């Protein structure tokens, strides 16, 4: 059993009185694509910053590629690649110049710079545009270039902080395909954060984070399987009568959502024939869907990811208000 790529023990981070990360524990194995899923403000970026040596933990410990993030900061930095949420390219330089600069800063062996550069640029489909000034690149091209740059020095662990935020669906899909390609071709572990459910699906394992703590950690399939119920949506002649009948005959609590009567039931497909036989209200259509990560998130946190973000925003603005009023006194 090789040593884990990332190992985290009771990691904590506080900013003034606010505890952003409240003691997280996990291990990421070599070669894994590991996702941190949670709403904005859940503490994902703070955790990633601690793992990348950009923030010092308040308590706890973490090691990346076998090196301690506090005691062996430089060692960690030499072995990781970083793609930040915000762009960090030099727009005045060409794509190639940006990569060359990175290679020099990381001390990449001179004779390997050119072949490696060609390889990473070809992977993200920017080899033809290598001489273009980055300023003229679209948002998606820049993100691809950042990923290529993060790979220039063959890192053991690649950190991607919200890799597809703000990108169009097509570019998002191509970035996911690079991640898949990387897994095959390079001996690399990928750690990413996201607040998109579909993005989390490409991970081998995901940790669901809410309010600074990990609330669930498993493969996407296992997490979804942990939710027994399927989601059933029906349209009927009389929705109110159908809801009443569902409560009456099956003991199911149904609601009208998106204009359809919606409820959760274990073994949804087997339930449909019974529904037709026993409901007593004419049914026009039925759809059964497997649980999604969205349902998983909801079952662990009691809110959808969107609601969680809104309440986090409210909390943040409340804290800001407190800080401001305190400052005035």
């Amino acid at each position: 059993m090789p040593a884990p790529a990332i190992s985290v023990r009771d990691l904590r981070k506080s900013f003034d009185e606010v505890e952003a990360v409240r003691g997280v524990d996990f291990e990421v194995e070599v070669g894994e694509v590991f996702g941190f899923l949670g709403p904005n403000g859940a503490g994902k970026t703070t955790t990633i910053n601690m793992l990348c040596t950009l923030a010092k933990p308040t308590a706890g410990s973490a090691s990346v590629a076998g090196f301690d993030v506090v005691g062996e900061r430089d060692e960690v930095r030499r072995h990781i690649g970083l793609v930040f949420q915000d762009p960090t390219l030099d727009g005045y330089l060409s794509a190639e110049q940006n990569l060359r600069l990175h290679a020099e800063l990381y001390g990449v062996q001179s004779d390997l710079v050119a072949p490696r550069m060609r390889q990473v640029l070809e992977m993200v489909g920017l080899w033809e545009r290598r001489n273009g000034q980055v300023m003229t690149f679209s948002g998606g091209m820049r993100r691809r270039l950042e990923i290529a740059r993060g790979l220039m020095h063959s890192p053991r662990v690649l950190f991607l902080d919200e890799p597809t935020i703000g990108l169009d669906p097509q570019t998002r899909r191509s970035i996911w395909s690079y991640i898949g390609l990387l897994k095959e071709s390079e001996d690399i572990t990928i750690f990413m954060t996201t607040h998109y459910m579909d993005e989390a699906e490409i991970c081998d394992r995901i940790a669901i984070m809410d309010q600074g703590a990990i609330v669930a950690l498993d493969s996407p399939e296992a997490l979804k399987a942990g939710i027994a119920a399927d989601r059933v949506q029906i349209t009927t002649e009389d929705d109110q009568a159908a809801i009443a009948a569902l409560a009456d005959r099956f003991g199911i609590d149904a609601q009208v959502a998106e204009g359809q009567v919606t409820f959760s039931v274990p073994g949804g497909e087997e339930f449909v024939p019974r529904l037709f036989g026993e409901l007593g209200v004419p049914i026009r259509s039925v759809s059964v869907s497997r649980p999604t990560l969205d349902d998983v998130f909801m079952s662990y946190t009691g809110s959808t990811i969107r609601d969680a973000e809104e309440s986090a925003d409210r909390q943040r603005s409340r804290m800001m208000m407190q800080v401001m009023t305190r400052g005035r006194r």
Partner: protein
Amino acid sequence: MSTAVADVVRVRVPARSLRSELRAIRIVWKRELIRFANDRLRIVTALVQPLLFLFVLGSGLQRLSSGGTHGIDLKTFLYPGILCITVMFTAMFSAASIVWDREFGFLREMMVAPVRRSSIVIGKCFGGATVASFQGLIMLCLAWAVHVPYSLTLVLGIFGLQLLLAFSITAFGVMVAARIKTMQSFMGLMQMVVTPMFFISGALFPLVGLPTWLAVLNRLDPMTYAVDPMRKLVFNHLDISKPALHALDPGVTWFGWHVPALVEVAVVLLFGLVLLSIAIWEFSATE
């Protein structure tokens, strides 16, 4: 694509060494040069101010000042000071790029690299110094227009002095940029400091018969020690009378002692090195 999957180029990042630090310094320096070369507009705009001072002020005030210049063209007198301000303003802009880099996120790319922060800061200061000296070279080409004859010692001397001054000013700018987060406040602050430094340095007037307050400020201004040797260098190459030399190039005195040019150069160098150390310390302390 499939071939790329088959044979991956494996790269190893070596442990930190003097060599890797030197590579980092060199690439940060080189980046300044690339950006300068790409930005032709900046090369032109940076020339506007010095040219105004030299040709508009120099020609416009010629008649007023003709009594005091012993027949020397005012432009010739102003020339050494103008060589200094060209470098000062360009160096200031170079340092400002740190603030841009922070705003556009690129600073982060440099800050997370496995090299010392000092290497980044030193590379930046060398880059600013080189770029500003190139800008100075353009001004050097105008020597003929202000009746200064060319010679190898003159060109080398001026270039060396410009390099030194540019280095010190860039170090100053980088030190300020460590704390200032927005471009507006950075430019505002730099204008507030650099413009008085330039005016007080004696770039536009000879250091004779100054009121006491101005004389004191002048001796405290580090730029004085760059402008004065520059003027000595230029005037040594002119064929002018002793009284004219005394009136226009009296030199800097400390309590009556004539400060030699080498000491003046040392003052500028020391100024730059102290600011560089502060800048390194500030950048190492962040994050």
